[in-house]
């Protein structure tokens, strides 16, 4: 966490203030990505075979679009892009710890190697 050491006066983001036009453009972008996401999940992936590469393309594509939407909402709608870096710091600190820790938990259950999805009997 690098905090500006000096005592600074609040500025309420005056100056680099985003406009409503930017927000509307962002919303359109998010709507388009959401449409692609849904379409992506409706693609006939099974008909194209069940290779690992196809599976990674299906799931990886969805996860990438999800991460993109998350990032765009946080940066633009939540103003992280226009605000002081300390806010980005504390928030993504939590996001990163959550992602790393819970991925580790799921790994110990062999979730990514098939064990987690198997019925017990």
């Amino acid at each position, binding site marked *: 966490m690098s905090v500006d050491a000096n*005592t600074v006066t609040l500025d309420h983001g005056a100056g680099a203030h985003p406009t409503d036009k930017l927000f509307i453009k962002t919303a359109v972008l998010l709507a388009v990505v959401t449409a692609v996401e849904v379409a992506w999940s409706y693609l006939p992936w099974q008909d194209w075979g069940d290779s690992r590469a196809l599976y990674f393309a299906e799931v990886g594509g969805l996860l990438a679009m999800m991460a993109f939407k998350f990032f765009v909402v946080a940066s633009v709608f939540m103003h992280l892009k226009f605000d002081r870096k300390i806010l980005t710091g504390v928030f993504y600190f939590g996001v990163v710890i*959550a992602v*790393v820790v819970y991925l580790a938990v799921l790994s*110990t259950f062999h979730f990514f190697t098939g064990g987690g999805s198997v019925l017990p*009997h």
Partner: protein
Amino acid sequence: MATTDGTLALGPGVDAPVRPMGVFARPGSTPGWRGWITTVDHKRIGIMYGAAALFFFLIGGVEALLIRLQLAAPEGKVLSADLYNQVYTMHGTTMIFLVVMPIGASFMNYLLPLQVGARDVAFPRMNALSFWVFLAGGIVLNSAWLLGGGADGGWFNYAPNNGVMFSPTHGIDFWNMGLIITGISSLVGAVNLIVTVLNLRAPGMTLMRMPVFVWMSLVTQFMLLFAIPVLTSAQFLLLFDRLFGARFFDVSQGADPLLWQHLFWIFGHPEVYIMILPAFGLISEMIPVFARKPIFGYPFMVFSGIAIGFMGWGVWAHHMFASGMGPISVAAFSVATMFIAVPTGVKILNWLATMWGGKLRFDTPLLYSVGLVTMFTIGGLSGVTHAVSPADTQQTDTYYIVAHFHYVLFGGALFGFVGGWYFWWPKVFGYKLSEFHGKVNFWILMVGFNLTFGPMHILGLQGMPRRTYTYRDNYGFNFWNLVATIGAVIIGISFLYFFWIIWKSWKDAKAANAVLSGDPWDARGLEWMIPCPAPAHNFDVTPTVTRLDDFWHRKYAEDESGRLIRVAETADVSMKGDGTGVHLPSPSYWPIVLASGLPFIGWGLIFNLWFCLLGGLIVITGIYGWVMEPADDPEAGHGHEDDHPSDSDDSSAAAEVAAPEEAALVD
């Protein structure tokens, strides 16, 4: 000395009349008990945290003595097997959540604003809320004793043993509700103290000029911030299972009990550092004072604390080596656990190097600090042996583990806290605790502690299992168990002695009727610049900081040969305690109102949902009262920044700078 000017210097303000708004008037400064329940002063809240923790310490201590009496001799008859399960579970839960954590919170509440040079915490009302919610949680947890018996599954309450089938009494429900409520308190406190440290530092107090205690508290609060919700989510799953028939830990339907273990220890291991880091911070403040040297390797001290904060997230599964996670997981967590010993070792070496070559003054706080360093090192070394997973599979669930964690939590955290009490007592209450009795008390505690927990290493290696209510005569456990029980009684006596010392010192001080200087130890931190006891407004003017240990450097400088020379009399660089014109946040009824609804929700979920309705109404009343009551600024509602109707609070920074503006308006 730039104490009287600076950009945050206060102009002469006026004690503004509170403008009432319907029923939502804020209480004025009331004396007596009403002043305490409506207070938003971080110092009073710190004192209340400490007092409540000491009360729960008595309960947890009695539970500990019951355990030791039961185990003093083979085939003990003091407790039944069932009651023994409840007593050790409640002992662990009480000591961790209602003693060690709140004592840490007590020190942080009292000291953080003083050490960063602030008027109060960032959200004074939320600070009061976090104390009252903590107390509510403690009451719910302990109300189990009166309403059908305590939890009986160990402080971790592993699944599926925590299910209704295996633990049919309501004990675990009380445990669940109590800890969810104290979790809310920790979360509120964490947000508040993090914002305080990041936002309310005095001019010039850069991050790398903050006292080590402030740094360790910041790391602790970040760990709490991220660890508490993990426990809360696990406890919600358990609550749904036990009270509403969900299937999260129902193995017959394909659930995996290891999910509980993982979630619990993801919280549980950061929790270990949450308990010890405040004590590390305290002795990092005390040792330099009594060695009359700056802390050795300040940046290393800070970065090792941060490193512990990060690495503490990657070691939780070493509590689960015996659970069959598979070799890759075990190996990874084993290595990570060995690594986390490194930053801890850095700290120990830094304390030793601080004392090395110093003019050591062995006053009571230093004795306890050295006690922490030595005892924690023993506990740390046995901890590294658990990191080696083959060794751990032999040690796990034996008394060796019990010995280990008492050395780090009692020998570590509690020794630091008791030392801290001796050190900061004059700042808080205006009189010193007896040095002579303090030293005697230290040695009694030291002997009792080692007699109690030292033999547990041997018992554990002999194979004595934890959590078993008795043992047979011919197992070879008799002698060391008796020694441990004698030690426990000595610990009990040493704490009764401590309470007597408090009373005796208070009486002597009252008889002597002397005024204590603000800086009785010739200390280093900003909190020693103000009188003892600390006045309600903290600093007369906000100090401007130019270096680490600023107060010390105002008193002393070094000559060419590096010797200390005094450059100013303490009285000349201290503040007089004159609070004229300082505008403080007004007290509020709503924190205690809001908190008092939570136990009813807890009991209601267990017994009858109508109680939940009552509790919910109280909570909602509290929230709306909170939002609607006037801010302490009399010009509230006229477009001032600090009239936020959000659920947060007015900042003391706002209060600080509001004062001159008001003065201007009135003039």
